[in-house]
């Protein structure tokens, strides 16, 4: 904590963080500032005019349709986060407990599939979900009805693709958190009379929270920027914010508007990130014990 207090006066700290600072400024803060700058300009007959106005912002805030898209994107992000966690947590739990002996083999398999290009995997889902695709063929042969899968090119297919592509992130963050939990803590809870469920709720879940939050944030932010899945599986009927931004830049050639929509999206991501950091910090403080005990 003391380091934090005097960091701005300490030349050493400043000097040490200079490379990182430069990198961040050049590739992150700079572009964002430029984007922000762009939002106060105007496009006239496909030419960027360097005027200072709030026209774009007033358009963003007055046009309902933009907020429908942004709202759809944010709810998609919440939904995919929820589903990813729902899938990843039990999987990570199994990997850290029951399947402990096979953990490294399973991890290699997961990493292989993770490293396979997302475009390929997403197009793969088209083959599965298509009206005459593998999914329906299989369901038909199992006697589960003709064309039971008929949601290709709807937002639900986008969600499926997003969850499929992103659930590996929380799987690993949660797994790492679970791995760090001392087995004796679980035994101590059993010993104190707790049932398996009580032990999970009182000990395992709270102690795996850092991984849970980290994974959730990753999925949330990555879903906000999702582009591929909505294009390949969503059918373009109900676009998400990234698609809207792309159209604004490329089709409408309205850079300031595109920049403004980008800023809104980045702002939402930042707020969520800030809340998550807060939550993680709180659990960190509680958990400082781990290190002190060892």
């Amino acid at each position, binding site marked *: 904590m003391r380091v934090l207090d005097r960091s701005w006066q300490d030349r050493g700290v400043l000097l040490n963080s200079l490379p990182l600072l430069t990198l961040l400024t050049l590739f992150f803060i700079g572009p964002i500032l430029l984007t922000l700058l762009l939002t106060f300009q105007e496009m006239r007959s496909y030419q960027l005019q360097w005027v200072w106005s709030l026209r774009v912002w007033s358009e963003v805030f007055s046009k309902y349709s933009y907020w429908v898209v942004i709202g759809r994107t944010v709810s998609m992000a919440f939904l995919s986060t929820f589903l990813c966690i729902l899938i990843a947590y039990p999987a990570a739990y199994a990997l850290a407990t029951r399947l402990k002996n096979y953990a490294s083999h399973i991890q290699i398999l997961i990493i292989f599939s993770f490293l396979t290009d997302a475009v390929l995997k997403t197009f793969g889902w088209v083959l599965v979900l298509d009206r005459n695709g593998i999914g329906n063929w299989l369901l038909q042969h199992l006697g589960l009805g003709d064309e039971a899968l008929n949601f290709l090119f709807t937002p639900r297919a986008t969600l499926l693709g997003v969850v499929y592509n992103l659930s590996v992130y929380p799987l690993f963050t949660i797994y790492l958190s679970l791995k760090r939990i*001392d087995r*004796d*803590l679980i*035994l*101590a*809870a*059993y*010993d*104190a*009379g*707790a*049932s398996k469920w*009580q032990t999970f709720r*009182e*000990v395992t879940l*709270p*102690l795996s929270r850092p991984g849970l939050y980290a994974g959730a944030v990753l999925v949330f932010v990555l879903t906000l920027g999702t582009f591929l899945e909505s294009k390949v599986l969503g059918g373009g009927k109900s676009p998400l914010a990234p698609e809207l931004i792309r159209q604004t830049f490329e089709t409408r050639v309205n850079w300031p508007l595109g920049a403004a929509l980008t800023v809104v999206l980045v702002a939402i991501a930042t707020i969520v990130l800030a809340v998550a950091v807060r939550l993680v910090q709180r*659990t960190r403080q*509680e*958990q*400082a*014990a*781990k*290190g*002190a*005990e*060892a």
Partner: protein
Amino acid sequence: MSQPIIDSRSISKNYGSFRALTDISLTIRKGEFIALVGPSGCGKTSFLKILAGFEQASSGELFIEDREMSDVPAAARPTRMVFQKLALFPHKTVEENISFPLRIAKVPAAERAERVRGMMDLMHLRHEYLTHYPAQLSGGEQQRVALARALVSRPGVLLLDEPMSALDAKLKKSLQAELKKLHRELGTSFVLVTHDLEEAMMLADRICVMVGGRIVQLGVPLDIYRRPANRFVAGFIGETNFLPVSVASTADGLSVRPLRGDQTAALLGADRVSPEAHGDAGLLLIRPEDGEILSGAPSPGMWTIAGTVDEKFTKGSSTQYRIRTEALDVPFVLESSGFDTAHIPVGAPVSVGFHPAKSYLLGDRP
């Protein structure tokens, strides 16, 4: 005191092809303080885990409070464990840690708070620690919180898995004293696992020495010290002299005579002979405090060994001499509390005397 609380009937435990425990039969009485002692890997911790319900015995039966335990999970057993690394919940405050078993048992909040505070007082923990997290406490305080959490639900048996091994010597001593006092006040049965026989001797009513997954000796501390089952147990605590002797049976009992030196044979009473000693050779166990450096003539029945002082350690209340002799390959260790011998310098020739009839005969195999 006489009622058994734990009754282990020939319990064995295999881990794959490795046999961790063989035929452990042990009855622990209500209110007793028993210590399971042995070198690492002797199975003492495995046995404790079986008592706690964390592991299942491969064969044998376990009764706790007259109930067969094979189908009873850890959560439902009347045992509570203090873990070696304490296993305090790092995300819970001291109060939440201690009250955890009560909350699980659905004890009302008011009673919970009262009992937690009672435990804090019993453990000499300041009430302001209630809102602290375990990491904010010192090692000794964490130890007390762990004990409080284990005892708050008034278990029939408290299991302690080397809880003091990580503490420094001084803190250890004071906690040992408190543990003994706690045991006397609560009347709970304590089962302590330790590799430190000295700690076991200090604390326990009975000591169970385990080696290689078997019980080697079970007895009161003084018995373990004075009448150890074999050479290993004898050497497990303190320092010991083993004098090789020849053994002969006579009408009056066993007669022993040192292999080297010309001493008169001494008769040993039946209580001075280990059951495992047989044949015509053995080892006479002589504790350091049994020997004395003779300044005059030996008293009747005494054996004497001549030697020179090799090393001398002043311990304050006593002086330890290591005396090189003809009769032994290793120096004879002698502890003298007398002030009259304190001036004997290193290198001085001395005569060591001891009463063979007061020593203990062991088999000559290790």
